[in-house]
C-alpha cells in the first residue's frame, strides 16, 4: 500500500481568537491535531509605556500603569509608587499603607476570580465565568467607592493614596470577606471535583522548579512547582510582615496546581484583608512629599508580588523629575516565554488549557 502523504499545517491562533485573552497570536504548526511548533507573536498592544514615561513626571506615569495589567491595576500603581518611594526613602502614613494593602489584596482576589472564570470558559464551562463576575462586581463597587473608578484606578500616589476611605467603607470590606469565603467554597464545589475538568488539567503542562527558575517564572507559575517564593514573604515590602498568612504551593507544577493555587491564594488574601481591616489606624493618607519628585540620581529596582508574579520597576534617575529610563518587569511577559516548550507535542485542546493556566494579560505582556 502506498504511503499516505501528510502535510504539516500552519495555523494562526489569534490575534482575534476567543481564547487568547486579548491579542496574542500563536503561529501553530500542526501535524493533524498535534502541535509541532509554536511561535508566540506579541506586541499588538504595545503602547510604548516605557518610552512615554521618559517624558512624564513620576506622578503622571501612575495612570499609565493602570493600563498594563488592567485586571490588577492597584498592584501596578503600587509597583511604581513603591519604587519611587524606596528611591526617595519617603515615609508613608500608616493609614495609607493599610489602605494600599486592602485594595491590593482585593484587587488580587478580583484578578484571580477572573482567571478562574476565564479559564473555565476556555475549557468550555460557561457558568463559572458568570458566577465569578458577581463577586468581582462587588470588589469593583468597593473600588468605585474609594477611588471613583472600576478598572483604571489611578488611586495611589507617591507618598500615600489619593483618597481616604469613605465612611463605612472598611465595614463594607469586612462584610465582603465572609461572603467571598462562601463564594470560594461554592467554586470548589462546582469546579474542583468535576471529573471532566480534572481530566483536562491534571498532569497537563507540567514542569519542575528548576525549569521555572531558569525561565525566570514568578508568582503562581513558580509556586505551582512547589517552590515557595513570594516576595511578600521573601523580600517583605509595605507592611506585609505584620500579617499572618501562608504561601500556598503546589506539588506537580501542572495546570491543576495553578488553578487550585489561585483559589488558595484568594483565601490567604482574604485573611490579609481581614487583619488589615481590623488593624487600620486613623490618620492622614498622604505623607509629606516634595512637590516635585526628584529621586536622587542612580538606578533603582523594586519588585512586588503582583497578581501574576513579580511585578518589578527598574528605573534610572538622573536627578530630574522625570525618569531617565523606566523599565517594567512584567510577569506575564516573562511567564509567557515558557509556553512554546510546554506546547510541543500537545494537541489543540491542551493548547487552550496550558495557555489559559499561564494567566497572561496582554496589556501587560505588550506594555
Amino acid at each position, binding site marked *: 500500500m502506498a504511503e499516505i502523504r501528510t502535510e504539516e499545517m500552519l495555523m494562526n491562533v489569534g490575534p482575534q481568537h476567543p481564547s487568547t485573552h486579548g491579542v496574542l497570536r500563536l503561529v501553530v504548526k500542526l501535524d493533524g491535531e498535534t502541535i509541532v511548533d509554536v511561535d508566540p507573536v506579541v506586541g499588538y498592544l504595545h503602547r510604548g509605556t516605557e518610552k512615554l514615561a521618559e517624558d512624564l513626571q513620576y506622578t503622571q506615569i501612575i495612570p499609565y500603569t493602570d493600563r498594563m495589567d488592567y485586571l490588577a491595576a492597584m498592584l501596578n500603581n503600587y509597583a511604581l509608587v513603591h519604587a519611587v518611594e524606596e528611591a526617595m526613602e519617603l515615609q508613608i502614613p500608616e493609614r495609607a499603607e493599610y489602605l494600599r494593602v486592602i485594595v491590593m489584596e482585593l484587587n488580587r482576589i478580583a484578578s484571580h476570580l477572573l482567571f478562574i472564570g476565564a479559564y473555565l470558559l476556555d475549557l468550555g464551562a460557561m457558568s463559572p465565568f458568570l458566577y465569578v463576575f458577581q463577586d468581582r462586581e462587588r470588589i469593583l463597587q468597593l473600588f468605585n467607592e474609594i477611588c471613583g473608578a472600576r478598572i483604571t484606578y489611578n488611586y495611589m500616589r507617591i507618598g500615600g493614596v489619593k483618597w481616604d476611605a469613605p465612611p463605612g467603607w472598611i465595614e463594607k470590606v469586612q462584610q465582603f470577606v465572609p461572603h467571598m469565603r462562601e463564594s470560594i467554597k461554592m467554586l470548589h464545589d462546582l469546579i474542583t471535583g468535576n471529573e471532566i475538568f480534572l481530566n483536562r488539567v491534571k498532569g497537563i503542562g507540567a514542569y519542575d522548579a528548576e525549569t521555572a527558575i531558569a525561565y525566570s517564572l514568578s508568582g503562581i507559575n513558580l509556586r505551582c512547582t512547589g517552590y515557595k517564593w513570594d516576595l511578600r514573604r521573601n523580600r517583605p515590602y509595605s507592611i506585609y510582615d505584620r500579617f499572618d498568612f501562608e504561601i500556598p504551593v503546589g506539588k506537580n507544577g501542572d495546570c491543576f496546581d495553578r488553578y487550585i493555587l489561585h483559589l488558595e491564594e484568594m483565601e490567604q488574601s482574604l485573611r490579609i484583608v481581614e487583619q488589615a481591616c481590623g488593624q487600620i489606624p486613623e490618620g492622614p493618607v498622604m505623607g509629606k512629599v516634595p512637590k516635585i519628585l526628584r529621586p536622587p540620581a542612580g538606578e533603582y529596582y523594586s519588585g512586588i508580588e503582583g497578581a501574576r508574579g513579580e511585578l518589578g520597576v527598574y528605573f534610572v534617575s538622573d536627578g530630574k523629575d522625570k525618569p531617565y529610563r523606566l523599565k517594567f518587569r512584567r510577569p506575564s511577559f516573562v511567564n509567557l516565554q515558557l509556553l512554546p516548550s510546554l506546547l510541543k507535542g500537545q494537541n489543540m*485542546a491542551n493548547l487552550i488549557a496550558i495557555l489559559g493556566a499561564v494567566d497572561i494579560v496582554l496589556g501587560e505582556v505588550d506594555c
Partner: protein
Amino acid sequence: MPFFQWVNDALTWGTLFRMLLGGIIVLLFLLGVVAYMLYFERKIIGWMQLRIGPNRVGPLGLFQSIADVLKLLAKEDIVPAQADRPLFLIAPIIAFVPSFVVIAAIPWTASHPFTADISVALLYYLALSSITILGIMLGGWASNNKYSLLGGMRSAAQMISYEIPLGMSLLGVILMAGSLNIVDIVEAQRRFMWFIIPQFLGFCVFIVAATAELNRTPFDLPEAESELVAGYHTEYSGFRFAFYMLAEYLYVFAISCLGAALFFGGWSGPLLPGWLWFAIKVSAFIFFFFWLRATMPRIRVDQLMTFSWKVLLPLALVNIVLTSVIKYWVNAG
C-alpha cells in the same frame, strides 16, 4: 383524523396533496419548536447563571428567536472566495434535510397522524441521521478554513464513534420489545413497564452517546469556541448558518423524542392526553441537555474517543448480552 392518514392509501393527487400539506404543517410546527427551544435554552441557562436571558423583543422576550431567525434570513449570503463553491452551498442542506426527515419516524401520540408507521423506524433513524455528518464534514472542508477543517474532522470522528454505542444501546430495547417499530416499542412498554427500569444501563449509554451525537456540552468539541472559533460553521453566515443551527436543534428534539419513546413509554401516561405526556417527557429531556450545558466543561478530544471505544461500547455490549440472556430465561422459564 382520517384526512391526514395517507399511509395506507393509494397514491393519487389527493393523497399527494394531503402528504404535502401534512409535511408543511409539520415543518412549520418544528420551526416553532426550535424557535422556542432556543428561547428556553437561553432563558434557562440565563437563570442558572444568575442572568435574565432574552427579555427585549416581545413580552418576556418571547419573540427573540423569531427576530433572530428573521435576521439570519435577511443577511447577506457570504461565500468565501477560496471556498469550494458548490459544496459550500449544498453542505448545509445536506446537513439539514435528514434532521427533518428523521422526525417522520417518531410517533407523537397514539393516533400519530403525521407519522410514518415504519417497521424499521429505528434503523431508519440511525441511517438518516448519519447523513448529517456528511453535510458537516463537507461544510468544514469546503469552507477552506483551517478551523472549519479541524472542526469538521473532529465532528466526523466524534459522530461516527458515538453512533456505534448509540445504536448498540438501542439494541437492548429492541430485544425487549421484539420490534424496530417505535410504535410497537411504546405499545410494549404500555403492557410491561417503562424500559428505563429494565434497560437502565442501556439508557445511561444512550444518554451519553446521544449528547455526544448532538455535539452538545460536554461533547461540543466540533464547535469548541475557545479552540476552534466556531468549528465547521466558522465561515457560514445568514440562512446557511441558520440551516446548521436548525439541524442541530432539530436533532436535540428528535433525540429527546426518541429517548422519551424508547425509555419512558412515549405518549402513555395516566389522566392527561397522550400528546401532553409526550410533550412533557420530551421537554424533560431537552431541559436535561440545557442543564448539562450550564454545568459541564468540555471534554478533551483524545479522551472523547477513548471514552467511546473503551467505556461506552463495552457497556453497551454487556447490556445486550445481559438483556438477551435474561430474556431467554424468562421465555424459557
